[in-house]
């Protein structure tokens, strides 16, 4: 029996939420892969806790809707368990850069062949609107009546400094998601993809999309780390001004040995198409 790509679960994101676009982009990507001959079991997905995490409920892939902050070590474990899996990690900004930031930095360092999508709405939405470590200064909510006083983390800069070999940002638009997943597919190693998706309830930013531009259209070369750093600094996650420009596309791409290529036992599995499960002892 052919497995359906979607589950029967009713989608419970707010009407108009950008997560619908991310879901559509991911499913479009998967469908085309299946048409090309891939099987659903070739893929695995992991999501964390927060609005983004529900994506696991809507896509019929194996994997785990794990704990808050733990998407990346789970992805790593899956990949080490079976290096032939195509592993996709989904996590929000609070999940990734507040609770789970150590895992993110080490994921870049390990360079396991995982595609990681950061749903960045700059707010803890599912807990009704508290600031994350990506929320801009001055943001006010019930828990922070005096407004956020700290600078937000710039995840693109963080990933570039941590040595990530594929660093990209897209807007939460189905076409862009599909496009970047296809680009990422051709890169071996840890792929960090930030998705700008302003929360339509707790972190409205209608102008965001209009402020974006495509890096590659402006002649950005993704093999230059210094240029990538400069581009990463163009948008600092503070409250956008009229002249704010948000670069999208691939900031940086550089191939180095993946974790799976560093361990002979795992490399062997990639050649044989097998995994630990097949080993009889």
């Amino acid at each position, binding site marked *: 029996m052919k497995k359906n790509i979607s589950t029967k679960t009713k989608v419970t994101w707010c009407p108009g939420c950008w997560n619908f676009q991310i879901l559509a982009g991911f499913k479009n990507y998967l469908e085309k892969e299946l048409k090309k001959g891939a099987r659903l079991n070739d893929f695995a997905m992991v999501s964390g806790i927060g609005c983004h995490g529900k994506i696991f409920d809507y896509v019929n892939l194996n*994997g785990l809707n794990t704990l808050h902050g733990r998407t990346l070590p789970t992805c790593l474990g899956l990949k*080490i*368990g079976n290096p032939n899996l195509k592993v996709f990690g989904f996590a929000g900004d609070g999940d990734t850069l507040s609770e789970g930031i150590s895992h993110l930095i*080490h994921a870049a360092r390990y360079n396991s062949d995982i595609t990681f999508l950061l749903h960045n709405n700059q707010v803890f939405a599912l807990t009704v609107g508290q600031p994350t470590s990506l929320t801009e200064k001055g943001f006010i909510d019930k828990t922070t009546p005096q407004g956020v006083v700290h600078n937000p983390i710039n995840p693109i800069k963080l990933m570039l400094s941590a040595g990530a070999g594929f660093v990209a940002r897209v807007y939460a638009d189905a076409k862009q998601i599909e496009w970047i997943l296809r680009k990422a597919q051709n890169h071996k190693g840890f792929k960090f993809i930030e998705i700008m998706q302003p929360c339509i309830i707790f972190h409205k930013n209608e102008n965001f999309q209009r402020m974006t531009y495509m890096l590659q259209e402006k002649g950005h070369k993704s093999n230059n780390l210094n240029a990538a750093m400069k581009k990463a600094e163009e948008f600092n996650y503070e409250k956008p001004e009229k002249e704010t420009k948000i670069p999208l596309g691939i900031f940086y791409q550089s191939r180095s040995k993946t974790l799976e290529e560093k361990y002979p036992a795992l490399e062997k599995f990639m050649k044989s198409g097998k995994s630990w499960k097949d080993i009889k002892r």
Partner: protein
Amino acid sequence: MKKSILIGGKAGQGANLLLHLLAESLVEEGYYVFYSRDYQSLIRGGHNFNQLCFSDSSVSSNESKVDMIVALDETTEKNHSSKLKKEGIILKGKESNMFFAGRIFNILGIEFKFLDKRLKELKSRYNENIIEAKRGFELEAQKIKLSKSRNKGKLYSGSEGITLGAIKSGLDVYYAYPMTPATPVLGELAQRQKEDNILVLELENEIAVANAGCGTAMTGAKTMVGTAGGGFDLMTETLSMIGIAEIPLVFYLAQRPGPGTGVATYSSQGDLNIALYSGHGEFPRVVLAPGDPCEAEEMTNQCFYFSQKYGIPAIVLSDKHLGESYYSIERKPRIAKVKKQHSLKRYNSYEVDSEGSATEDSERVIKNVNKRLDKKEDIFKEAKKFKQYKVYGRKNSNNCVLFWGSTKGAVLDAIGNLDICAIQVLHMDPFPEEIEKLVQKKNLILIESNATGIFGRLVRKKTGIEIKDKNKILRYDGREFFSDELHEEIKRRMK
């Protein structure tokens, strides 16, 4: 015949190596051997000592008095000379550890060729070592008379037992973050990666370790993670998730004195409750506590058995004393065959519907909870296939010692010919139901390496029987029980 030797020095002087090769040679000579390590949380300097006991009959603990002290530094003599028996020998001086090895071998009447063999096995520094050893051997004139022994034991530590148990169960991947006293297992397994085709990884912290462990176990690989109490605390969030997601993961938990950083390089049985009860929510688990390296193999093996069969977390609970002491053991472990019973599917940290997606449906939640908790009954029955507890000594005696884990060695050596029985519980969860009958109307004496008698409370919970405070022999300074002292403590409480 029973002889004790204490070898001490500054960290880095090689007291450890010296005692280990002596222990190996004594085992080869046919003696029963036990030794423990006392070391501080530092790398060079300080004061470390190892204490060894050997005999022509079974021995698995140390005594408070020793027949020989080998002092590689002045502190050893200062700190330990009061332990020396009247006719005991003290060896001291500024020479190297291998010089003393030569002297000790001569004193004990072990032929030099056996020392030579050990030094060859060490590979490094053989040329220097052999000169030193020979010099010591030839200079020595004292003798300790020994009776012959023909035991054919194998010398290994609890950590090596855990390692072997995991390998024999078909371990595929081990994750850990270094923490005393769990680290020796990490080292043992890492050394065996190639020959056993396993993978051992150190990740950024215990949280990553536990979650990567989940990811790998989900793919069907037999997976284990290891840590001590503090690291286990960090893993308990994941332990709880495994409880709902039903992922087969084995935890190695090596205890040391807490709370906090506690006494980092010493031993304790203070973490029984975190093994039994940590993690939010209600879910089944298995907690097994070996008392010697052979049982360490068996309990680790059973953890794999239960976790694979029921999709549950299983915890093998050891401590520094068991993990880092060496025992000569004749018995061969009983290893159960562990089938790989899992493959990748949709797992979830939420309650799930029939497709593995999150649900809040009341009926479904009840169904899921019941399905998980019903496993408890199945596990309880399945566990009867294994030796869940052991009874030693005079089974019909009115006096009864209750113990668990690493106190086994000292307890068995202490009860000797006393009119007493001793019950060791190996399965903490599921707790063997027979214990309730066994402890009725007995004068119960509890022995534990903690301050509050945690196991005693478990016994009370399971049997309704309270052990009197004056009958609790508790040691909580991180040190081992000495069998002679324990013998007196037990005797005083007997009726």
